[in-house]
């Protein structure tokens, strides 16, 4: 009887654990198939088995080549290409969410096995390729003692860094390789209590006057209580001059990367959606972010689909929920976003690159790649195209996990890989790799002229447009 009950219980649990062997629904684009919510008693967890790259490289499309331009970093997340071609890398790991339930105690170490084992860098590293041969011979610490830096933005000589608890500002001079010794000044404190989702994505508006910061929710689906969700799951708009801020858009569960669309100046985001509704819910998405818009979390997903796990209910907010623009697929964990340009070649000129960290709670893992979402007339058009793959084998061997993606105006995509602690540079074969025209060493005259432009930041000239 005892054994029988146990057998029944175990087979019941297995049966309830989501039979995800069937073909997944098509979940790309504006109108994804949404199956019924489903959650077994046991979660589907397939954790990456980390392995070194060895002689192998990520796979890139024909006409492109890939090389590692920095290794042995301390958890690289997002990158920023500076006007002189230098690359800044934000390194670190944040969050201080305590285990809440027995399952957190059990699941925490299991999930951690699929990530890097190195300690959080809490710093910015600068990479420089002075002679333009694609080999970044200088790798040096630009700034240290930060607090899980993630979002980066440069406006004129202001380098903004979004730590997990504050936006800070450094003075930046062209050619600088190390921040001044005095600590950066704090522009605005960010909500950081618990920090279940700690990554503070950031981008600057086209005119450079405003900063947009993504602040993720403090839970999967309100299991830490609604009080913990005050000032969470939204995008803040911060005045770069004063630090004053206001919610720009809400209901975005975890906006992990933000970017301004060239031309329109429209803010776009990739957002990671909720778990535990089955392998094919809820799709992570790419969307334009409307000022004042509400995107559903926690009461609704993908428009007005009610999430029954949230109590008390809120029909008014459900009715208000905006449907996102473009589904990237469930559990792909999109963490990187940047718009492309002509420098990436005609096939990849109009669209956005999205870095997908990869799933951990899906029997058939997805993500683990960088895709290109083609755009037409300023809107996503067509299925995503694999741009960088080869991070994970079918047997679970995982050599890397992409995070931030940044288009280098010299004709390359910079990809941060937080599993192998590498920065990859995917460049067009034959693209111009001439050294940048801007001076590499600071010169007094330039510094003075930078100060002059500070009063009227970025009036549309390409050189002055804020980098993401």
């Amino acid at each position, binding site marked *: *009887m*005892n054994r029988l*009950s*146990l057998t029944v*219980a175990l087979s019941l*649990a297995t049966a309830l654990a989501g039979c995800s062997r069937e073909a997944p629904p098509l979940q790309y684009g504006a109108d994804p198939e949404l199956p019924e919510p489903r*959650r077994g*008693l*046991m*979660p589907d967890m397939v954790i990456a088995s980390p392995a070194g790259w060895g002689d192998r490289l990520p796979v890139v499309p024909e006409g492109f080549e890939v090389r590692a331009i920095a290794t042995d970093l301390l958890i690289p997340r997002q990158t920023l290409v500076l006007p002189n071609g230098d690359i800044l890398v934000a390194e670190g790991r944040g969050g201080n969410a305590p285990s*809440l*339930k*027995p*399952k957190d105690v059990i699941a925490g170490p299991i999930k951690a096995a699929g990530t890097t084992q190195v300690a959080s860098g809490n710093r910015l590293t600068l990479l420089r390729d002075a002679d333009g041969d694609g080999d970044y011979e200088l790798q040096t610490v630009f700034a240290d003692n930060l607090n899980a830096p993630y979002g980066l933005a440069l406006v004129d000589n202001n380098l903004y860094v979004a730590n997990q608890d504050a936006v800070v500002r450094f003075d930046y001079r062209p050619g600088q390789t190390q921040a001044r010794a005095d600590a950066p000044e704090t522009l605005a404190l960010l909500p950081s209590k618990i920090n279940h989702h700690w990554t503070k994505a950031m981008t600057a508006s086209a005119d450079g006057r405003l900063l947009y910061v993504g602040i993720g929710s403090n*839970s*999967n*689906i*309100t*299991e*830490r*209580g*609604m009080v913990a969700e005050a000032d969470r799951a939204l995008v803040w708009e911060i005045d770069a001059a004063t630090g004053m801020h206001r919610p720009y858009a809400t209901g975005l569960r975890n906006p992990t990367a933000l970017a301004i669309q060239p031309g329109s100046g429209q803010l776009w985001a990739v957002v990671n959606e909720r778990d*535990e509704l089955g392998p094919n819910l809820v799709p992570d998405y790419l969307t334009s972010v409307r000022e004042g818009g509400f995107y559903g979390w926690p009461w609704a997903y993908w428009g007005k689909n009610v999430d*029954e*796990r*949230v*109590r*008390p209910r809120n029909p008014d907010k459900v009715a208000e929920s905006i449907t996102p623009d473009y589904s990237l697929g469930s559990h792909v964990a999109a963490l990187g976003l940047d718009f492309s340009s002509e420098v990436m070649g005609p096939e990849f000129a109009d669209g956005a690159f999205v870095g997908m960290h990869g799933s951990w709670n899906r029997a058939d893992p997805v993500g683990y790649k960088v895709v290109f979402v083609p755009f037409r007339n300023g809107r996503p058009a067509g299925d995503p195209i694999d741009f960088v793959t080869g991070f994970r084998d079918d047997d679970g061997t995982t050599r890397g996990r992409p995070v931030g993606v940044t288009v280098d105006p010299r004709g390359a995509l910079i990809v941060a890989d937080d599993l192998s602690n590498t920065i990859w540079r995917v460049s067009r074969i034959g693209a111009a790799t001439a050294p940048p025209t801007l001076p590499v060493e600071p010169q007094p005259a330039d510094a003075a002229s930078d100060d002059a432009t500070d009063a009227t930041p970025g009036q549309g000239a390409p050189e002055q447009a804020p980098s993401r």
Partner: protein
Amino acid sequence: MSASVQRPYVSFYPPFHAVLLGGATALFLGALVSDIAYARTYEIQWNNFASWLIAGGLVVAGAALVCAVLGLLPSRRSRQSVLHVVVLAATWILGFLDALWHARDAWASMPGGLVLSVIVVLLACAATWLGCWTTRFGGTP
């Protein structure tokens, strides 16, 4: 009092077994009360309490189950002791299902978690009653 001292069978085991049974029942009852509080208030902390109380109940009920299985030794076995083991095992298994159900986030643990908690408390009471009856604490087996 004096009567029990004169009994020939005095062992550490039966009272310890009884404490475990009482402890498990109390922990599962605490989980049930927490579930009721969560269902009435939507206050998430009650859900956390329930999860940990069930985890504690499983640990203590597991120890009680070991004691109960020891009670199946040929010298002590009776119909009641076999029934006790069966009911206690059922308590543990349903308690484990209850724990899995409570691992679901927020209201996803309801109402299934509450229903399971009711069943587990009833089973724990039945197992305790059977256990007290069969071991006749302080008496001969």
